[in-house]
């Protein structure tokens, strides 16, 4: 059965999710075998290779740890969503998991302090972090859990005591004590005060040149103290998944949106065009001269408008699809909003442990690894 040729308009119609003032239309993919009589739609790797595109909009390569945005064009929502879910929950990172409190006389309770420490994003030589092992959780056979080693545990220390600054007493006597930074030393405990203690092969892998383990942001405030108080604790960071605890998630955000479309069906002219442009974010709609050609194309009754300004779509990418233009009666039936079903604009922002573009690559690898694993398992078990 030879597939019948499908017109370009029909293909475009199938690709667009309609956005109306109160409803959405054509939300589901229809590219399955048997959906359209006489059409194939079977999975074809070569066809996918030819149609699938990646476009970069912003990369973190020049500015590490910043937002990376890119588009995946020609892929199904189920797969784009799998990448997003893996980014959030399945790429392992290291975070502080065990805190051994030797002394804590600050006003922050041990458990609250431990929780705060766990949430501090750590960074370092990311290839070495990637190569670290998971620490096996306790089981019946191993009730204590796996022993910490240099391959599954990062050792960190925080030892800090708050004291009076030199000459503080004099300032107090003179009633000049309004600047607390002159009165106390170490009264603010920052993430920077956490000290990494490399053990075993970590001495080489997390050396000063390769990148020692350190907090991504040195100025995270951990606790506040007053003279006489001190914090002295040992921390074990280990590998975990975002699915188990959000502190292990490698991304601050990983999300996608669909590419917006704005179709101006009938000309929008003059003051209406200016009002129309104001319904959208800046530079999404532009104004151009309405020419005789346009008037001829638009049909009867437009000749007198030649020379006025008309609204044209300049940059639908930046539209937020607020649907504001659909609230005004003067644009009724003149504009159609939509989104491209298979154009995903991803934005990935790392917490700093891995570069954001590397994270997406890891998510694709992780999905491939999942399929491999089940495939091997099937071969062993089912037959």
């Amino acid at each position, binding site marked *: 059965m030879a597939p019948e040729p499908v017109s370009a308009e029909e293909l475009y119609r199938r690709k667009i999710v309609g956005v109306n003032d109160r409803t959405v239309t054509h939300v589901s993919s229809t590219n399955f075998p048997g959906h359209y009589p006489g059409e194939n739609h079977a999975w074809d790797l070569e066809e996918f290779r030819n149609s699938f595109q990646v476009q970069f909009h912003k990369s973190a390569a020049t500015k590490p740890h910043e937002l990376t945005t890119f588009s995946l064009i020609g892929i199904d929502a189920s797969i784009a969503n799998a990448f997003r879910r893996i980014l959030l929950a399945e790429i392992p990172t290291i975070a502080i998991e065990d805190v051994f409190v030797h002394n804590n006389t600050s006003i922050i309770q041990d458990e609250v302090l431990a929780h705060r420490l766990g949430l501090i994003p750590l960074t370092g030589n990311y290839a070495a972090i990637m190569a670290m092992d998971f620490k096996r959780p306790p089981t019946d056979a191993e009730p204590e859990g796996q022993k910490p080693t240099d391959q599954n*545990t990062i050792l960190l220390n925080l030892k800090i005591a708050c004291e009076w600054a030199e000459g503080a007493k004099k300032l107090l006597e003179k009633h000049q004590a309004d600047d607390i930074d002159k009165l106390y030393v170490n009264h603010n405990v920052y993430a920077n005060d956490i000290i990494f203690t490399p053990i075993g*092969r970590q001495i080489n892998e997390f050396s000063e040149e390769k990148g020692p383990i350190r907090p991504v942001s040195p100025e995270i405030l951990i606790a506040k103290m007053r003279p006489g108080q001190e914090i002295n604790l040992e921390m074990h960071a280990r590998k975990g998944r975002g699915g188990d605890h959000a502190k292990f998630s490698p991304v601050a955000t990983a999300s996608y949106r669909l590419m917006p479309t704005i179709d101006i069906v009938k000309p929008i002219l003059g003051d209406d065009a200016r009002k129309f442009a104001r319904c959208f974010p800046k530079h999404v709609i532009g104004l151009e001269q309405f020419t005789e050609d346009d008037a001829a194309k638009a049909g009867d009754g437009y000749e007198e408008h030649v020379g006025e300004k008309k609204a044209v779509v300049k940059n639908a990418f930046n539209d937020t699809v607020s649907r504001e233009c659909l609230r005004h009666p003067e644009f009724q039936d003149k504009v159609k909003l939509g989104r491209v079903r298979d154009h995903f604009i991803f934005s990935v922002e790392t917490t700093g442990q891995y570069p954001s573009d590397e994270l997406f*690559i890891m998510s694709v690898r*992780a999905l491939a690894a999942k399929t491999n694993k089940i*495939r091997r398992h099937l071969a062993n078990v089912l037959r």
Partner: protein
Amino acid sequence: MATQVPGTQDETMPDAPGNENADGQDEDTIIGREDLVVRVLPGASDTAASFEIEHEDHTLGNSLRYMIMKNPEVELCGYSIPHPAEDKMNLRIQTYEGTTVYEALEKGLDDLKDLCDVVLEKFEAARDDYNERQL
């Protein structure tokens, strides 16, 4: 709170024997699950069966369902998470005569793997191209 001498109760931390995942690309290192179980649920025939896959969720469920539905020999494919507190995913496949659910599942997994390879290849090319233009 008594001030205790740090480290008195602690054992020293041993070094791990050898590095098993030296390249850092091992599948278990990426996913962190070793105990995957796939089971065929009772009532299965060659052309209609339900699989129970442990430690998987919508991530693999929906993408695998899509790839299996792209196979013209498959009559139906669907997945469900029977209960949110149980870490398992059920996958239902029904095929037309002439193939089996096992073949359909294996083809789905292979197709998904191929797709990932293409995405990876195109993503890396696009990234390198973009970075080159920025410099």
